[in-house]
């Protein structure tokens, strides 16, 4: 990834389409919630002193509800993040004077050299 020589706030908030989603990242939340739903059905059976896999429709239903909930909250989270970025971008566009484009600096340029006083 090539780093821009300047620090442009608007550019930071813009999707440049150069980030590749990994295999797991889009399915991680629905998947874990499905597994949790299935596990909950097993736990309930264990707690009621039933064979863990009895009443398989319960496992299917719990897994489906878990998967649906995971997918739903995943979407919710994406929407929330997109909206947050849009709000920030809009604010920056309205107040450009507060967000000047600055040159990138290294810490070495900012920090003063340390002079021990003993």
């Amino acid at each position, binding site marked *: 990834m090539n780093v821009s020589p300047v620090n442009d706030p608007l550019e930071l908030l813009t999707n440049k389409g150069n980030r590749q989603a990994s295999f797991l990242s889009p399915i991680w939340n629905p998947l874990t919630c499905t597994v949790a739903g299935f596990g909950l059905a097993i736990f309930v059976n264990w707690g*009621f*002193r039933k064979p863990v*896999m*009895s*009443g398989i429709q319960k496992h299917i239903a719990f897994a489906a509800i878990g998967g649906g909930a995971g997918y739903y909250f995943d979407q919710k989270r994406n929407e929330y993040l997109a909206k947050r970025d849009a709000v920030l971008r809009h604010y920056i566009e309205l107040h450009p004077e507060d967000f000047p484009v600055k040159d990138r600096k290294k810490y070495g340029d900012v920090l003063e050299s340390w002079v021990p006083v003993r």
Partner: protein
Amino acid sequence: MTAVFRVGLVRLVSRGATAPNSLLQAQTNALPAAFQQKCNISGKTMRGGPRVPKEPPYPYKTKKYTVLNTFLDKTSKRFDENSKVICVEGPIASGKTKFAKELAEELDMQYFPAVDLDLIFINKYGYDMRQLDPELPPSCRSYDVRNFCLDPSHDLAAQFQIRMYMLRYSQYIDALQHIFNTGQGVVLERSPFSDFVFMETMFRQGYLSRGARSVYNEIRSNTIGELLKPHLVIYLDLPVDAVQKQIKARNVDYEQQSKVFSEAYLRDLEALYKQQYLKDIANHAELLIYDWTAGGETEVVVEDIERIDFNQYESDPHNKKMIDWRFPLESEWCEARIKYGHEKPDLMNYFNVPRFDVPELLRSADDSKVWRDVWFNAPGMKFRPGYNADMGDTGLATKTKIGINEAI
């Protein structure tokens, strides 16, 4: 102003309990209590036929009764003059079983047999858990009435008597559940109310420690107030020597070999029964006492029962007698019905009294571990009843139901 609406609402909601069925009934309700004509408990012979229920009984063994059901199915409508709890009491081998059966038959009531520890030791599939004794540590082995007769000074005698109380309590709840759901009266042999007589006798004879007695009393005071006391107690009275003769005549092997039923034991039992239990219960229930030395006629007792005017206690709300059975509102009838049916496991929870100061009522952790491993690996004990494939339960793949009013 709100009072007007409230009164209106109460009338509307409780109309099942108080609404007159007919004009005649409306007039009777308006009359003073003295003019009300209702009949007492009646036997088959007197009625000239079997009891005709006012309403079909609620199938409480196959169907739950919860708050939601109260909107559709009221409770007091099933009650009639025969909807009574009758407890048959008496010393050992006094002929209670035969008498109680005949009484129930004549009055068309449900008979509940005397409890024993088979209810604990024989599981739902008929497997006798007492077979596991050789594998268990001594503190966890079975101890039932037979063991008590042969070895009454054993440490487990205290646990035995507490379990007897628990079973009687559980059975009494079942009896109340029956009466609330069907309106049919019940006849019980002994009751949780009289169980302390045996505990106290055991204590006086030195079979029970002071600590165990204190635990029993604490459990009793924690649980007994939840029940509705019986309407009628029938005591079959036999002098001590007659009891001993009856025990001999009954010829049960462990009773014959037992040293428990000594004169002192039976005298204590009689004294406690008469001076504490009967005295106490007579404040609430009607009491009939018969000399049963040479047996007796059930018909005579039934005639005496038919003469008791249970209605007299309805008019005075402050009368201590039958006070447990006076519910002013229909909703209270329904709540009681839920309490003894759907909420029975909650009532049984009141037995969890944390007392750790009586060694004979405690098990060590190691013993408990062994017990748990053996007990829950016995045939039919691995899973809850109805879920053991190895015992022939089928359809487990899609089964989710558990028994009606079963503890979860």
